[in-house]
C-alpha cells in the first residue's frame, strides 16, 4: 500500500509549523507501518493533547484523540478488550511524562503490548513554549524567563527502570534509524518505548537560540551518536541513539488469558 493510502488526505496540509519535527515522525511512522504491511483496520492510534497528539487526526486508522496525559490509560482499555489490535500511542514529552508520567511508568511495568512514542521537543508546543520535564536545566522557556532550574528525565533510563521491554531512541535527523526502530518496536511483543528527539523551532528553537528547523536537526546530527560508539567514549556528553533494551517477558494480555483460564477452572 502506498503511504498516501494510510493518511486522511483531506486534512493536509497539516497544522504543524514550518520546520516542526512532528511531520517527519508522521512520515516515518507510516513508512514503518507500510514496511510491516499492517492492515489499517488492525491499528488503533491513541493520542493525548498537544501539537504531537494531532498526529492521530492525519492517519486512516481507528483513531482516539483523548485528553492531556491519559493516552496510555485509554489505550490500556482498548488493548485489554481487543488484544489482537496493534496499539500505537504517540505522545508529547509533557503529555507522556509530566501529566501522564504516572500512566507511563505503570503501562511499562505491566508490559502491556503497545508502542509508546515520545515525541520529545523539550517544550510545550501547543500552549506556547512553557518548559516541560524534558527541557532540562539551564534552558529557557516562556515560564522560565530566568532560565530553568528543573532537571530533566532521561526517558530511556526511566523506561528501562519502569520495566519497558523494548526501549529505543532516535531523532528526526536519523530517519532510516527511526523507521527501523519503529518497525522493531511495533512488532515487539510487550511494552515498547521509542523516544524521538524532534524540533520545535517555533518555541524551543526561538527561546534557546537554537536556530530554525534545519539547524536544530543538524544539532541532532552533531549531538548524538550510536550506543556505545567510540565517539561516546571520547565525548560522554553525546546522546546515544539505538535500541537499549529488547527482551521477551510475559505480556499483560497473555497473562490475563491465563487468569481467565484459572478462573474458569475454579
Amino acid at each position, binding site marked *: 500500500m502506498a503511504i498516501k493510502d494510510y493518511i486522511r488526505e483531506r486534512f493536509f496540509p497539516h497544522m504543524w509549523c514550518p520546520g516542526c519535527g512532528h511531520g517527519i515522525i508522521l512520515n516515518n511512522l507510516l513508512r514503518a507501518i507500510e514496511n510491516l504491511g499492517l492492515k489499517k483496520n488492525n491499528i*488503533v492510534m491513541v493520542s493525548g493533547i498537544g501539537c504531537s497528539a494531532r498526529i492521530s487526526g492525519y492517519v486512516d486508522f*481507528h483513531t*482516539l484523540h483523548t485528553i492531556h496525559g491519559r493516552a496510555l490509560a485509554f489505550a490500556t482499555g482498548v488493548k485489554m478488550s481487543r488484544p489482537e489490535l496493534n496499539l500505537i500511542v504517540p505522545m508529547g514529552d509533557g503529555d507522556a511524562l509530566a501529566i501522564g508520567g504516572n500512566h507511563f511508568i505503570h503501562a511499562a511495568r505491566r508490559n502491556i503490548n503497545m508502542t509508546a512514542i515520545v515525541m520529545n521537543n523539550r517544550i510545550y508546543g501547543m500552549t506556547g513554549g512553557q518548559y516541560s520535564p524534558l527541557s532540562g536545566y539551564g534552558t529557557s522557556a516562556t515560564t522560565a524567563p530566568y532560565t530553568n532550574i528543573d532537571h530533566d528525565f532521561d526517558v530511556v533510563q526511566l523506561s528501562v527502570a519502569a520495566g519497558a521491554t523494548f526501549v529505543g531512541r532516535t531523532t528526526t535527523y536519523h530517519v532510516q534509524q527511526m523507521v527501523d526502530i519503529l518497525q522493531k518496536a511495533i512488532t515487539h511483543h510487550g511494552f515498547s518505548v521509542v523516544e524521538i528527539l524532534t524540533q520545535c523551532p517555533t518555541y524551543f528553537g526561538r527561546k534557546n537560540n537554537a536556530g530554525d528547523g534545519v539547524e536544530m536537526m543538524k544539532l541532532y546530527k552533531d549531538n548524538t551518536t550510536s550506543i556505545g560508539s567510540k565517539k561516546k567514549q571520547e565525548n560522554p556528553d553525546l546522546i546515544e541513539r539505538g535500541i537499549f533494551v529488547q527482551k521477551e517477558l510475559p505480556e499483560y494480555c497473555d497473562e490475563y488469558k491465563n487468569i481467565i483460564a484459572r478462573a474458569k477452572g475454579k
Partner: protein
Amino acid sequence: MEKSVKFVQGNEACVEGALYAGLDFFAGYPITPSTEIAESLSFRLPKKGGKFIQMEDEISSMCAIIGASLTGSKVMTATSGPGFSLMQESLGYAVMAEIPCVIVNVQRGGPSTGIPTHISQGDVMQARWGTHGDHSIVAMTASTHQDVFDITVDAFNISETYRTPVILLLDEVVGHLRERLDVPPPGDIPLIERLRTSCSEGIDYHPYLPREDGRLPMSDFGGVHRFNVTGLYHDMWGFPSDNPGVVQGLIRHLVDKIQNNVNLLARYKEYHLEDAECIMVSYGASARSALHVVESRRVRGEKLGLLELQTLWPFPEQIVREKCRNAKHILVVEMNTGQVMEMVKSSVDDPGKVFLANKVDGIFISPTDIRNILRVVQGKGV
C-alpha cells in the same frame, strides 16, 4: 432457569446487576466504601471471560473503561468521592464523545477525604455539574438491594440507548447493608444492546450522525469502519471542527438527547401519594427511613406519603410538581445540606411549602430524626 436468592451487600447487588446486564470490562482503584465492587468483579469477571484491571488511579480507570467501550464492551468503574473527583475530566470526555459507560459512586462524607466509612449523599450536584462545561447527564440511585440490582441493569440499558455515561449514586449505608436479593433468571429483565451500524464496509459511516429517533449507531474499534473520536467539538465523522454551526449543533444535541427525554428517563416509586397532605421526597438510604415514618404514621391515620426518586438527573421536575401539587407540606429527606431540596423547590408550584429533613454528621438519618423535624413542619412544636 430459577431465580437465585442471595443475602448480600448493596455493593454486591450492584455487581450482580452489572453482570446480569452483560458487563465485559471493569477498571477501578480501591476506595472505601466502594471497594467490594472491585474485589467481587476481580473474581467474577474472568469466570465469564470478562476483563478486570486495577489501574494506578481513578483517572486512568475512567479512561480505560472508555477505551474498552469503544471496542464494543459493556464497561463500568466504581469509586467514592475523592476518586469521583479525579474522574471528572474523562467523564466529560465520555459525554462529549458519546461513549456508553457506567460509573458507580458509593457516596461517603466529603469534601476532601472527609469521613470515608460513613454515609453522605453530598455528591448529587457534583454528579450533575462535576465535569466542566455545559452538558447533560444521567444519574440514578436506589434504596434497597433489589432496586440497586434493577437500577444497575437499567443504567447499562440507558447508557447504551443514549450513548451516554450513567452515574449510579449509591451511598455507604446501601452499599454495606446486607439484605435479601433475588437475581431473576436471564431474560426476565430485557437488555438493550448497543445499536451497531448497518453500513457495510466501504460505505461512508458517520459515527456522530443521529438517526431520526435520535440514536447513533456505533461501530466497534477494530471493525471495518475507521473513524476519529475526540473530546474536541467535532463533525459527524468525529473530526475536530470549530464551525459555529457544528459547535452549536453538537452542544444542543448533547443536552437535548437527555433533557428531551426527562420523563422517559424518570424512575421513581410512590407510596400513599393519592391523599397525602405531607409528602416526603427522598432517595437512596434516606428513603428507607422516610418510608418507615410514612408507613408507621399511616397506621395511625396520618396522611403521609413518600415520593422516592431513583433518577436524580435529569431531574424529573414535572413529575415532582404534579405529585406534590396537593400536598400542604413537602419534606425533602436527604443527607446533605439540601441539594435535592433546591431542585424540589424550583420544581413545585409553591417553594414556600418545601422543607428539609437532613443529617450531615456521618450518622444515618433515622425515622426519629425525621419525626422530630416533621413535628416542627406540621406546627406541632419542637
